[in-house]
C-alpha cells in the first residue's frame, strides 16, 4: 500500500480557497445580500464583515485555519472512489466524480490531515462541500476510518469538521452503509480513550448528521449552520406546516440540547485547543510528537 504523505506549506494566502477569481472581485453575502470585496471576505475567514454570516469554507482553508502555522500533513486514504452501481441519472456518476475531482483537485469529499494544534498533535478530517455537496460515499467512510486509525496510532484527538448534504445517492445502499462504518471509526477513537470532537458547519444534514456528526464527545457548531436529519422541504411537504423561525439552525439546536456550543469561526481553533487541553492534560506521552510517515 502506498501511504505517501504530502507536506503542505501554505503561503500567506493559504487561507484563500483555491479560486480563480481575481482579488478585485466582489462577492455577495447570501444572508444580508451586501457586497463584500473578495479579498476582505477571504481575509475574514469567509465570514461576512457586515452581518457575521459564516459562508462555506473549503476543506484546505479549514485545515490551514486549525493547524499551527497552517502546516499539516495530509494522510492518504486507501482505495480510490469507484462507481460500484454504474449509476446514471441525467448524468453518469463516473462523470460527476471526474468533474468534481477536476474542479476541487481532490479525490473525494473528505480530507484527512495530522499536525500540531496548539502545540499538540491532532488529527482533523474535513469535508469539502464543493465535492458533490460533501456527500458521503465509500470514500468518505474510508477517510473517517483512516482518520480514526491515525488518531489512535498517534494517541491524538480526532476533530471532524462536517459540511455535507448527506449520503451520496449515486452509491445507493453502499452510501447508507457508511453510517455504520463511520460510527465504527468514532468508536475506535473513543475506545482508545481519545477525544472525538465534531464541528458542524453549514450544512450538515441527512446520514452524516444521523451517524458520526451526532456522536461527538463534544459537539460544536458554527453560527447559523443548518443542522438536521430531514431536509426542510421534505418536512414541510410531510406535515404541511410552516417551519418555525430559525428551525434547524445551530442556535436552535443549542436551545434544544443537541449541541454543546456555537462558536464563531474566528474563535474556533482557540476553543478546540482549550477543550483538548482540558480533556487531555499534557503528559510526556501526549505532548507534541513529530508526525511520522505511517508504514
Amino acid at each position, binding site marked *: 500500500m502506498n501511504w505517501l504523505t504530502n507536506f503542505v506549506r501554505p503561503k500567506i494566502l493559504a487561507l484563500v480557497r483555491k479560486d480563480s477569481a481575481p482579488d478585485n472581485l466582489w462577492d455577495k453575502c447570501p444572508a444580508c445580500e451586501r457586497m463584500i470585496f473578495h479579498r476582505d471576505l477571504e481575509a475574514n475567514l469567509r465570514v461576512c464583515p457586515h452581518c457575521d454570516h459564516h459562508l462555506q469554507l473549503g476543506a484546505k482553508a479549514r485545515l490551514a485555519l486549525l493547524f499551527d502555522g497552517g502546516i499539516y500533513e495530509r494522510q492518504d486514504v486507501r482505495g480510490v472512489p469507484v462507481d460500484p452501481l454504474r449509476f446514471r441519472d*441525467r448524468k453518469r456518476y463516473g462523470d460527476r466524480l471526474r468533474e468534481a475531482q477536476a474542479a476541487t483537485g481532490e479525490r473525494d469529499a473528505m480530507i484527512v490531515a495530522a499536525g500540531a494544534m496548539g502545540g499538540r498533535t491532532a488529527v482533523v478530517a474535513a469535508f469539502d462541500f464543493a465535492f458533490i455537496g460533501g456527500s458521503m460515499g465509500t470514500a468518505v467512510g474510508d477517510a473517517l476510518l483512516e482518520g480514526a486509525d491515525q488518531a489512535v496510532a498517534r494517541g491524538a484527538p480526532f476533530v471532524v469538521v462536517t459540511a455535507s448534504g448527506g449520503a451520496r445517492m449515486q452509491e445507493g*445502499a453502499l452510501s447508507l*452503509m457508511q453510517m455504520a462504518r463511520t460510527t465504527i471509526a468514532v468508536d475506535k477513537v473513543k475506545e482508545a480513550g481519545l477525544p472525538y470532537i465534531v464541528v458542524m458547519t453549514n450544512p450538515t444534514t441527512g446520514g452524516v448528521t444521523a451517524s458520526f456528526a451526532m*456522536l461527538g464527545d463534544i459537539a460544536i457548531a458554527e453560527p447559523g449552520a443548518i443542522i438536521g436529519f430531514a431536509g426542510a422541504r421534505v418536512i414541510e411537504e410531510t406535515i404541511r406546516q410552516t417551519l418555525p423561525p430559525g428551525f434547524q439552525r445551530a442556535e436552535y439546536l443549542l436551545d434544544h440540547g*443537541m449541541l454543546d456550543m456555537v462558536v464563531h469561526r474566528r474563535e474556533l481553533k482557540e476553543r478546540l485547543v482549550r477543550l483538548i487541553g482540558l480533556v487531555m492534560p499534557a503528559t510526556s506521552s501526549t505532548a507534541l510528537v513529530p508526525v511520522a510517515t505511517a508504514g
Partner: protein
Amino acid sequence: MRTYLDFEKPIAELEGKIEELRHVSDASGINIVEEVSRLRSKTERQLRQTYAKLTPWQKTLVARHPDRPHFSHVVAALIGDFTPLAGDRRFADDPALLGGLGRFRGRPVMVIGHEKGADTEGRVRHNFGMARPEGYRKAQRLMRLADRFGLPVLTLVDTPGAYPGIDAEERGQAEAIARSIETCLALRVPIITAIIGEGGSGGAIALAVADRVLMFEHAIYSVISPEGCASILWRSADQAAEAAEALKLTAQDLERLRLIDGVVAEPLGGAHRDPEVAIATLGDAIERAFTEVAGTVGEPLREARRERFIAMGRTPIA
C-alpha cells in the same frame, strides 16, 4: 377484498372472473368447475410470469403492499410468549417502533421492529412505520437490556424512513439514529436483521447493523426512496421507476453487492398472498442465521460485526 397493484391488472381480471363464476347458478349451462380450474391455472401462470421479472419499481410497490405481513404478523407467528416493552424512559412510547421479549423457537430473544399498521386506523396510530427519536431510543434501551441478559436480538425492518417532522428534529432524530447504530455495534450478543418490507434509509439502518442481514425476496433497502431520489437527481418524482432501477435497491441487487447475507423466498405473487407460508420461510432463515453466528460470542462477535461493515465496498463486485 384483495388489493391489486397497477401491474397486477391482468391477475385482478382473472381472479375477478373466478369470483363471478362462483356466484353464477348451475342453470347457466357452463361447466363452472372446469372453467374455474382453467382460470386458476391461467392466473397462476400470469402470476409466475409477472413475479419472475418484477422491475425494481414494481418490487418497491410490492414491498409497500398494504396487505404485506408486518411486524405484528411476524411476531404473532414466530414469537411465543411475546411480551411488549414500552417507552424510552425519556419522553414517550413510540407506536411506530415496537419491541419486546419472547421466545423464538423456544429460545428467549429480544424482538424490535417498525410497525406500519394493518388498516387505516392502525396506519395512523403507528405513523405508517415512521419512527420518532423516542422509538429509536426505545430500541437502544431494549438492545442494551438484551445485552445485559445475554439475549439474542432480532430486528424486523419495515419503514419508509424515520419521521421527518418538527418535533422529531427538535428531539434529535439524527442523534437517536446515530446512537441506535452505535448500540447495534456495541452488542456482545448476536443481532439478526430481517428486512421484511421497506428498508427506508437511516430509519432502517438504525436497526440493521447486524451479524446477519436477511431480506424478503420482494423487500427493498435503499439510501433514499425512489421518489425522493428522482425528485433530486431527475428533478421530477415521475422518474421514480428509473431511480429505483439505478439505486439497486432490490434484495437481489444487495446480495450481489454483498451488503446482505440472504434472500428469503416469498410465496408466488408476494408475501401478501400467503403470509403464513412467507413468515414460516422467514422463520427458518432466521433460525439458520442465529445458528451460523452462534459459535461466536462477546467481544469477538462484536469485532466480527465491525469487520463485516468495514469490509463492505472494499471487495470488488464481479
